[in-house]
């Protein structure tokens, strides 16, 4: 990657952090646990990298590492979203 495209990635990173700060500060304390488990599930986005690693044509050590990464990331994603939904289902006003 050349210098300019790398800098673009840094741009995106920095701006996304600011968006994150703006969004998260508005989440009330009551929802902090679902926020954690939900954002946790989002961090499972590494699944994208895991799929790219596990799907290489030639079978090498990269494929094995990729497959284990798919398992880990999938636990993170599926477990995270489901458990968050389970929690949020309970938050009711009477």
């Amino acid at each position, binding site marked *: *990657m050349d210098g300019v*495209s*790398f800098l673009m*990635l840094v741009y*995106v*990173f*920095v701006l*996304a*952090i*600011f*968006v*994150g700060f703006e*969004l*998260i500060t*508005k989440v009330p*304390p009551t*929802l*902090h*646990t679902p926020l*954690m488990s939900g*954002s*946790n*599930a*989002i*961090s*499972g*986005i*590494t699944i*994208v*990298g*895991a799929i*790219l*690693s596990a*799907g*290489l044509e*030639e079978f090498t050590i*990269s*494929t094995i*590492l*990729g*497959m284990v*990464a*798919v*398992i*880990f*990331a*999938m*636990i*993170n*994603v*599926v*477990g995270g*979203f*489901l*458990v968050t939904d389970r*929690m949020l289902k*309970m*938050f*009711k*006003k009477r």
Partner: protein
Amino acid sequence: MKTIIEITYLVSSVFFIFGIKKLSSPKTARQGNMFAAIGMALAIIVTLIDQDVLTYEWILIGAIIGSTIGVIMAVKIPMTGMPQMVGLLNGFGGGASLLVALSEFYKIMNFPAWNHDVKTDISIIVSILIGAVTFTGSLIAFGKLQGLVTGRVVKYPGQHAINALLVFLIVAGGAYTVIYPGNELLILAIAAISLLLGVLLVLPIGGADMPVAISLLNSYSGLAAAATGFVLENNELIIAGALVGASGIILTLIMCRGMNRSLLNVLVGGWASAGSGGPAPEGSTPKGDVKSVDAEELAMIFDSVSTVIIIPGYGMAVAQAQHAVRDLVNVLEKKGIKVRFAIHPVAGRMPGHMNVLLAEANVSYDKLFAMEDINDDFNNTDIAFIVGANDVVNPAARHDQSSPIFGMPILNADYAKTVVINKRSMNVGYAGIENELFFYPNTLMYFGDAKDAISKLTNELKNL
């Protein structure tokens, strides 16, 4: 094709942002989580049609195994086990980042045609470091919360020197591999040292400081994903990772502020006296007599008041008393008594821990108040009922400059006309110090396991 994939990643990122935005209200939160899940599904599907993905069997096998484990964990875990669950899931996210970075390293090594440069090499090292620290750090946090690893503050000689040495080795090794790439042994050594560092960083942190540790690890798992994004030059990973990273940092700072401590102070193992958990230390002078009441007397006191604020703490979670508390609230409300909950920011073992438990027990979320929203109301409250909380109501934090918790924001329970404390014994809380509130003239101690004691109280109230 490349453009379609890129646009879908963008749409997916927008779903993540809207998903988190909708988490700002309990009414829309569930929909928000759904949005985020849709974003994730989009990202996964579109990655499968990427031109670099040529074989599907390994992906499929991994996805089936991972999803099955994920579903089982999410369905089986009791609400009281939520802090462990979040810790464990964090670990898997970090582990995935570590593995992807290693996989990329081998890809570059085995296919020299794969273009890479210094920035990719640096990104791989960073990704390995953060991923590995998140992985083992989260496993230790899980172990502490599950009771598999000691919840006490662990200190050993040379602690900081060892950590500093490990960080130095990682940085030096990383610099070397960037200059002379392709050194397999060195990369594996860096990964191993990073794994060890994760263990050593979380091990010293005491049980009640876990809200900070879990939040920080949450942040790391996001940063690990972002680092992987730099390795793969993928904007979506960077955006999602940055969002999670920011979220974790904010929660970490809120938790630290809730204890009036610096992040550094928490990370190095906190108060000297912390986590001892035994009886009150010798030499501390009790300030008067302790008055204790039984269920029948207490029921009569409750029966005659009009406002109650309940302060839940980790003790409620341990005794799984949230349902018993809910029953008590129902009976009190039937008698026309106004009941609210005051939640200290660091009550429990993770941010929002008490809120989740009370939500599970069907307590309406509009009865739950954050410290700053309710602290002025204790003056006109008849009873402050403390269930399994200790340090967060210790008035010494306000006036005793020699106290380790001096300056920590506390709930003004002592300003209520009567303070009722349910506790199993006179033992100290996490800070390892005597709580002078126990000896106040307006304080009544109601000893017993939270679940049994509160059920008994509820029954007595019903019989009045």
